[in-house]
């Protein structure tokens, strides 16, 4: 698998990827009922992907596909039960959480729950510096103001509380807090889905500009494929904890191969009044992750399912320009 990842995709395979997942999996033990035995819930299984410095990796999928669990592992908040995560080629479990924090920082979906309501903007943005004991009080203050300017927050808000800010301003605060440690990687978990349309555009533009200016790498988790198409260089599609398709964004959007990816792309509703609603025949929602279907996890909903699909789990293989996990491709 490593070998496969090494040859795959990147022209200069000598460069160490900023972020790499090798066969990463995470299993939770879930107790259903008081006396029931614990059952394994495989939230993430055998995920292998990588992204280079300055690129945007989008992880897409529906709720329950494991993308949030993966994000927590990237942040060092959860340990993978199998496989390993590498930051600049260094395994994440060989360094302390504080060292991970200097390299990877999160931006969350809900700007209302991501800021402590009892703290001022200055306290919130400077928390990383305080925790890591960086600088004096004065130099921290100066740095907070610098980053507020960078993310487009007016200086007058420095002593405000989160309740005095709009949703967009709060998300800017969250971004400033993530960036003040000068991380290389920012894990954005649906950073705009709780925002209004007009505010979403501001934040997306800001994230774009920051990436160019600071040469950041984003792991961008989203279910909004229009946003993903706009931002991402690489796309990883997940289904029920498994990576089913991974490749360059342009390839995946122009030529989706996995039936699930195709369905996802078909479901994007562009604001085009001349088009009707797409016909999607995926049937019911996600199967229960505690007892996933046999064979390919997607086969009960798949319009192209063959006999083989219910019997045998497909492996993640390299197919032309991407990795794919589907019996339709050899």
């Amino acid at each position, binding site marked *: 698998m490593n070998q496969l990842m090494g040859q795959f995709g990147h022209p200069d395979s000598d460069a160490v990827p900023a972020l790499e997942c090798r066969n990463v999996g995470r299993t939770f033990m879930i107790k259903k009922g008081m006396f029931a035995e614990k059952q394994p819930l495989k939230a993430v299984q055998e995920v292998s992907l990588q992204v280079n410095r300055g690129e945007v990796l989008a992880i897409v999928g529906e709720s329950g596909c494991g993308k949030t669990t993966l994000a927590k592992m990237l942040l060092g908040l959860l340990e993978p039960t199998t496989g390993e995560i590498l930051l600049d080629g260094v395994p994440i479990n060989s360094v302390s959480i504080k060292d991970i924090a200097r390299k990877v920082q999160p931006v969350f979906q809900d700007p209302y729950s991501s800021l402590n309501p009892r703290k001022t903007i200055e306290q919130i943005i400077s928390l990383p510096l305080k925790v890591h004991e960086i600088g004096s009080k004065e130099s921290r203050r100066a740095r907070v103001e610098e980053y507020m300017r960078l993310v487009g927050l007016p200086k007058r808000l420095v002593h405000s509380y989160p309740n005095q800010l709009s949703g967009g301003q709060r998300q800017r605060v969250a971004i400033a807090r993530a960036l003040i440690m000068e991380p290389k990687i920012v894990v954005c978990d649906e950073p705009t889905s709780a925002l209004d349309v007009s505010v*979403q555009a501001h934040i997306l533009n800001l994230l*774009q500009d920051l990436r160019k200016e600071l040469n950041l790498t984003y792991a961008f988790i989203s279910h909004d494929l229009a946003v993903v198409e706009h*931002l991402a260089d690489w796309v990883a599609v997940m289904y029920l904890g498994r990576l089913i398709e991974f490749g360059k964004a342009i390839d995946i959007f122009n030529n989706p191969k996995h039936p699930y990816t195709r369905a996802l792309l078909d479901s994007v509703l562009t604001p*085009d009044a001349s088009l009707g609603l797409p016909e*999607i025949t995926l049937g019911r929602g996600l199967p229960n992750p505690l007892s996933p279907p046999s064979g390919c996890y997607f086969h009960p909903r798949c319009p192209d399912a063959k006999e083989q699909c219910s019997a045998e789990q497909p492996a993640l293989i390299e197919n032309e320009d991407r990795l794919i996990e589907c019996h339709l491709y050899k």
Partner: protein
Amino acid sequence: MSSDTVLEVENLSVDIAVPAGTLHAVSNLSLQVEQGETLCIVGESGCGKSITSLAIMNLLPRKAKLTADKLALEDRDLLSMSESEFAKLRGDRIGMIFQDPMTSLNPVFRIGDQLEEVYIQHGKGGRKEARERAEFLLEKVGIVAPTERLSQYPHQLSGGLRQRMMIAMTLMCDPALIIADEPTTALDVTMQAQTLNLLRSLQKEFNAGLILITHDLGVVARMADRVMVMYAGRAVEIGSAEEVFDMPTHPYTQGLIDCIPVPGRTEPGSKLGSIRGIVPALVGDLDGCMFRNRCDHVSDPCLSGDIGLTEISAGRAYRCHLSPEESKNKLSVEGAACP
């Protein structure tokens, strides 16, 4: 009012008492819904779109005060109706679908009982007819094995199924008007298209009027017969979906359309259009155009006075000082700069 008109609202205003004064949540809003027609109300949070739907359903919070020149459902005057008369109407002539079906389905009762209850309560028939109707509708919303599903509890269903149940429930009494407030926002993308398809085909089949409230321009474009764009408690642009999306007249509508990335239209990685500034707090005396702080085309007349709706053609109107020609020129130039 033609006989096909299901709902007619004229000059609806909703004022809410807040500590700082009076919040003008909705101001002078007029709308009409015909049989089998889908009206989409689109706008951002705080624009008054949900308050409008609550006002029509007479479900406003106690602190809110409603005034209107006319509020009629199928030629019945809703303004003079008592709460008990209204209660009979809700679930019967007006059905409502909320964003989170969990809040509208009672978790301690079986789905079947809840569906049948609506039917029996409104005097449509007995338990047996109710059960038949429920099974019929569950098949309509594409649920296999309806008998089994009817004996389940809401928590046993997935989000998509629950929302189908809600659709079936609103159709139990064959309503004249369905109000759906962000019906698919909580659903996954693949379920969204399926649910909307279902809602649309059933609404046409039952010939009900549909008011769809959403912030998602994609949903609006694909679902709407007519669109009403709301901003700051007012309708700022009204028209057919094609007209509004292909040739927006109000700077706010244009701004909204430029804000969203569209696969195949916006260049990946390019800068998205955006609307600067903040949404006004609608407290106190409101004067002039409410969008002036965020608009690129402000001139003196925008600063004060009442800006009325200008009608361009039948069913097409907008609330702006720019003439249709001016807005066409200015907005399209801007649109070219921000593809």
